[in-house]
């Protein structure tokens, strides 16, 4: 007897409980990462089983996984793992800079696995009502994550997210009820509300009721999936959430909602024949794509830009399914996967940028970010190129697959429109990213904040003063309004470059234990190194007092260690490992798709396409 599916739900739940009970942040981090690592493993196991048995069900058919669910499980687990890995360093830095309180971080670590777990439940639940419940649960668990920073804007975003999302879900509830009603018509007893059961009696469902239900569900789940014009919460929530959550929202949460919609789509198609629901999906998909392009073109906020790009991609996926040929559905699923893998990279990079520049306004970030954060820019650039649909990145393949399918089935005009929309948003993203990433920075800012050197090295007080005064002088000069605005903001937050590094290390000087805490979560050898080097730096502070000879020898060693480390790991920026991991996974899958995955997607496409190949 297998408990794969149950475990998939239990692992995150357990992690949430652990986080709730635990006081150690490290334990919380570990719980999150482990739980999702476990789910990745379970997802792979599920993949194997689904390929073997086609359908896996547990708990008396309460949980059921076919190829489509398995595909979603894989995506959700990988993205969740990535973002929980990223969250570790992200929140440590946030904590160090004072952007969040430990309580909030705990909130994150409790809610994050719940969010992930709820998504698992969505894709595994067989009962459509439970699926609805799970989707509501994803909304409820993520809304506090969106509001995590407790800024005015994030509260606003959270409010819009929850209100519009709940309203959508209320509509979806109506739709669910109607579907149930359509099923109940022919059975005297309480029918089974499982999707698989409904599918088996699809031809007996009441067609008018199903039609009505699909409209409700389309608007309802469509709102959650971010289809235009129900998408309005999307840019707000995605841009205001902390980056790991943005990644989850954009990477998988949208797709999970779309998954729910797809289940109804499959049902409707089976009941009504193909054209009704697919045409609606096509219209909404195309609408979303067309709407996204102009917003991308004139966007000023980096994360909102990414959010609109998600809108475009979700539109493409939706339209691909709406085109309803085996190839387009396959392409749409592939697109789902690639987009789920690459969007987190973008949001992680945006998070890195946000943390070091303390703004997401692109005119303040750029130009010339490449000089300031070369590695982040690299990941952002690669991911940006991917998300624009350039080869050799996977999204190009999936887009072309969708288009090919569209053309092959003779839906030339619609496919051409699709192509035009893709091109339009390409132009927007390219312009925006070039403007931000390339060029010469207006002011020299902090370099890529490396973990060790920068945080550890204490700075003599007099240089501190000098730096901040020069900073103030710069503010007073304030050549351009933008610049002034930027520095003022940075002063307000008290942790900003150019004096930013100084502020931070100054704080550490006052509270050495805090520094230790920053490093506490590292794998053992490294944390030890950091500890050692901290103790050595204290000697160095003696040197400022005139005791240079005392610390002369040990300092050489520590410098050596540090130099060795920085040569090996200097580019390792906070959050970059997770970013790099996701990027690597994406790149690998871009050039190499293992056969089981292909088979899985083919099966999933078969499920969506109904009788199609």
């Amino acid at each position, binding site marked *: 007897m297998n408990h794969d599916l149950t475990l998939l739900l239990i692992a995150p739940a357990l992690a949430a409980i652990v986080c709730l009970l635990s006081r150690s942040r490290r334990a919380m981090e570990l719980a999150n990462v482990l739980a999702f690592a476990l789910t990745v493993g379970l997802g792979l196991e599920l993949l194997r089983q689904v390929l073997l048995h086609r359908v896996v069900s547990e708990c008396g058919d309460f949980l059921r996984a076919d190829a489509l669910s398995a595909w979603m499980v894989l995506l959700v687990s990988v993205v969740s793992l990535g973002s929980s890995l990223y969250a570790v360093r992200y929140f440590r830095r946030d904590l160090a800079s004072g952007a969040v309180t430990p309580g909030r971080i705990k909130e994150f670590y409790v809610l994050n696995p719940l969010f992930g777990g709820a998504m698992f439940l969505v894709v595994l639940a067989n*009962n459509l*009502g*439970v699926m*609805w*419940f799970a989707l*509501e*649960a994803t909304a*409820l668990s993520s*809304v*506090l994550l969106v*509001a995590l920073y*407790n*800024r*005015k*804007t994030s*509260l*606003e*975003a*959270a*409010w*819009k997210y*929850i*209100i519009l999302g*709940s*309203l959508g879900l*209320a*509509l979806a*509830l*109506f739709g*669910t*009820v*109607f579907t*149930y*009603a359509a099923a*109940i*018509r022919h059975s*005297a007893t*309480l029918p089974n*509300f499982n999707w698989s059961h409904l599918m088996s009696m699809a031809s007996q469902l*009441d067609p*008018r*009721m199903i039609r*009505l239900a699909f409209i409700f569900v389309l608007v309802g789940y469509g709102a959650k999936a971010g289809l235009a014009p129900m998408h309005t919460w999307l*840019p*707000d929530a995605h*841009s*205001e959430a902390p980056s790991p959550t943005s990644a989850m929202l954009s990477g998988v949460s949208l797709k999970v909602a779309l998954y729910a919609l797809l289940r109804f789509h499959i049902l409707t198609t089976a009941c009504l024949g193909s054209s009704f629901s697919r045409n609606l999906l096509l219209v909404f998909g195309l609408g979303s794509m067309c709407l996204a392009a102009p*917003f991308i073109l*004139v*966007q*000023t*906020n980096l994360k*909102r830009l990414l959010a609109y790009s998600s809108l475009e991609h979700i539109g493409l996926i939706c339209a691909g399914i709406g085109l309803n040929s085996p190839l387009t559905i396959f392409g749409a699923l592939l697109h789902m996967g690639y987009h789920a893998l690459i969007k987190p990279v973008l949001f992680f990079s945006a998070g890195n940028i946000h943390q070091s520049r303390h703004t997401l306004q692109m005119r303040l970030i750029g130009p010339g970010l490449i000089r300031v954060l070369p590695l982040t820019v690299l990941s952002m650039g690669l991911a940006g190129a991917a998300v624009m649909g350039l080869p050799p990145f996977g999204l190009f393949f999936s887009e072309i697959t969708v288009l090919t399918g569209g053309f092959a089935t003779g839906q030339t005009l619609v496919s051409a429109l699709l192509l035009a929309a893709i091109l339009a948003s390409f132009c927007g993203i390219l312009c925006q990213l070039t403007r931000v990433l390339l060029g010469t920075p207006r002011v020299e800012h902090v370099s890529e904040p490396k973990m060790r050197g920068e945080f550890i090295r204490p700075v003599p007080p007099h240089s501190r003063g000098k730096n901040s005064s020069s900073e103030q002088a710069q503010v007073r000069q304030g050549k351009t309004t933008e610049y002034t605005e930027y520095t003022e903001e940075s002063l307000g937050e008290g942790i900003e470059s150019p004096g930013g590094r100084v502020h931070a290390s100054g704080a550490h000087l006052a509270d050495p234990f805090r520094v230790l805490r920053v490093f506490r979560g590292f794998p053992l050898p490294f944390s030890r190194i950091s500890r050692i080097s901290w103790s050595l730096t204290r000697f160095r502070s003696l040197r400022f007092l005139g005791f240079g000879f005392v610390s002369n020898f040990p300092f050489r060693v520590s410098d050596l260690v540090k130099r060795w480390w920085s040569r090996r790991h200097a580019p390792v920026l906070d959050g970059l490992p997770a970013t790099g991991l996701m990027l690597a996974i994406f790149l690998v899958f871009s050039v190499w798709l293992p056969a089981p995955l292909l088979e899985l997607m083919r099966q999933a496409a078969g499920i969506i396409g109904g009788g199609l190949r």
Partner: protein
Amino acid sequence: MNSSPSDFPSQLITLLAAGMLVIQLLMAVQRMLLTSIRLFALQSLLFAAIATVIAYCHNAPEVYWVVGLTLAGKVCFLPWLLNRQVRRIGIVQEIAPLLNPSASMLLCGAFTVVGYLVARPFTSLERLGNNTLAVAIALLLTGFFLMLNRRKAISQVLALLTVENGAMLAAVALTTYGMPLVVEVSMFFDILVAVMVLGILVYRIRESFASMDLSELKLLKG
């Protein structure tokens, strides 16, 4: 076991459903927040009454669960929670809708008509009462409108809850016994958590914005 529309339980259900709609319309013109909350509680009570009628007349003991949950949750707990929140935050009671009462009344009437029009093809599918589905859809549309028409965060939450009531009514009307129990329970649970989460948000918004006026939430544009 279709009940003919003329038998007593059915008529009773129709009456109660109409009552829900009337309460909804009252909420549309109501200016005081606390009264609105009470109206909502009343509406939920009516719904519980419908469920009781069903459970009793159709001999469906599991529907008592629904009754119980509704009574506990929607009639008692949620109004209490919202009430407490209102008092704790000290919100100004005035709701200040965007449209004036007569206009909103008119619109709500229009929405009710739309609801009837939409539900007309499905009247034959209803198992209980006359036009309960139409009432449910009308509840949805007017609830939607209520959300549109309210500036205050809490009143939007209330509107959302009435929409949920509509959904429950639709469930009962179309399926006799409501949804499967697991769904009912999870729905109830969801709503509960939703209101709590919304409460937290309302509290935080109140803290940050120093007001509950949603029209001030316009920082995120473009």
